[in-house]
């Protein structure tokens, strides 16, 4: 791939070179800036912090072992996240825990399009409300209950703030597929958290009105 090295800055290229020769310290320096996204990717797939840490460690060791395969066509962090996601999926398959997930089937019409559950007005959410413990807990549960294919996209795009393009690259999807899954993920989270559920997220309950057009 022409000009592929341009992705790497001088420091990263130097660290990579040393790591390839077996320098673990250099490799750790490469991994360090990505460790949070590695953990986040793993825990969002596995829904279990201890398993996620094991998988994160495995993924890092695997990356070190197979460093020769990294051709710098992608960013190092992209490559490491790909390995992590693969490891996490393998673990999930092995444990068959995924059978318990996706309890809430999304609402779709006959064309398979997502229909929002309700139209609760969620306009007024002051920042202190966004920090409420109950809301954060509900968000965590809502993400954990998303079907895996939506969850992966949401984590890469909205939690880790990656571009649509990079998200597509990591998951080996088209950009169109990423956008479709992202839409579903965001709508489902919105549905799960919309004050229509019980109205507790808004500070001024008086202003809240549940509306269904049909």
């Amino acid at each position, binding site marked *: 791939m022409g000009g592929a090295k341009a992705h790497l800055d001088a420091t990263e290229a130097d660290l990579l070179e040393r790591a390839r020769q077996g320098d*673990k310290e250099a*490799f*750790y320096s490469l*991994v*360090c800036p990505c*460790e*949070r996204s590695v*953990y*986040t990717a793993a*825990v*969002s797939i596995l829904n279990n*912090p201890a398993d996620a*840490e094991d998988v*994160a*460690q495995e993924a*890092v*060791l695997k990356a*070190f072992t197979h460093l020769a395969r990294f051709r710098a066509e992608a960013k190092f962090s992209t490559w490491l996240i790909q390995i992590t996601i693969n490891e996490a999926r393998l673990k999930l398959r092995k444990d068959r825990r995924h059978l318990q997930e996706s309890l809430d089937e999304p609402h779709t019409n006959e064309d398979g*399009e*997502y*229909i*929002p559950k309700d*139209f*609760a*007005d*969620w*306009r007024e*959410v002051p920042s202190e409300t*966004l920090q409420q413990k109950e*809301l*954060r807990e509900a*968000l*965590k549960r809502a*993400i954990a209950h998303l079907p895996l294919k939506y969850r992966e996209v*949401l984590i890469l795009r*909205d*939690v*880790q*703030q990656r571009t*649509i393009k990079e998200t597509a690259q990591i998951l080996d999807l088209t950009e169109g597929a990423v*956008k479709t899954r*992202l*839409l579903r993920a*965001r*709508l489902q*989270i*919105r549905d799960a*958290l*919309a004050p229509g559920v019980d109205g507790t997220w808004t500070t001024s309950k008086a202003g809240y009105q549940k*509306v269904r*057009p049909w």
Partner: protein
Amino acid sequence: MRVIEISCLEVWREISNYVDGEVDAELRARLEAHFKVCAHCTAILDGMRNVVKLVGDGVEYELPDGFSQRLYRKLMDR
């Protein structure tokens, strides 16, 4: 510019792309004209923006204590 009307269903299909600024000028104008007159879709839009904001601060995904040290040790012991 003449703005062609758009249905709620079409709005929901594009609402996430709209939040991300991934729609062209013509579609954006149609969506915005719809939001002006449709309270339901505006509520969905506001909700989705809140979701992006909420999810984006990532506080649900703090690293466990000692994660870095354990990772470092694992690598060195290998």
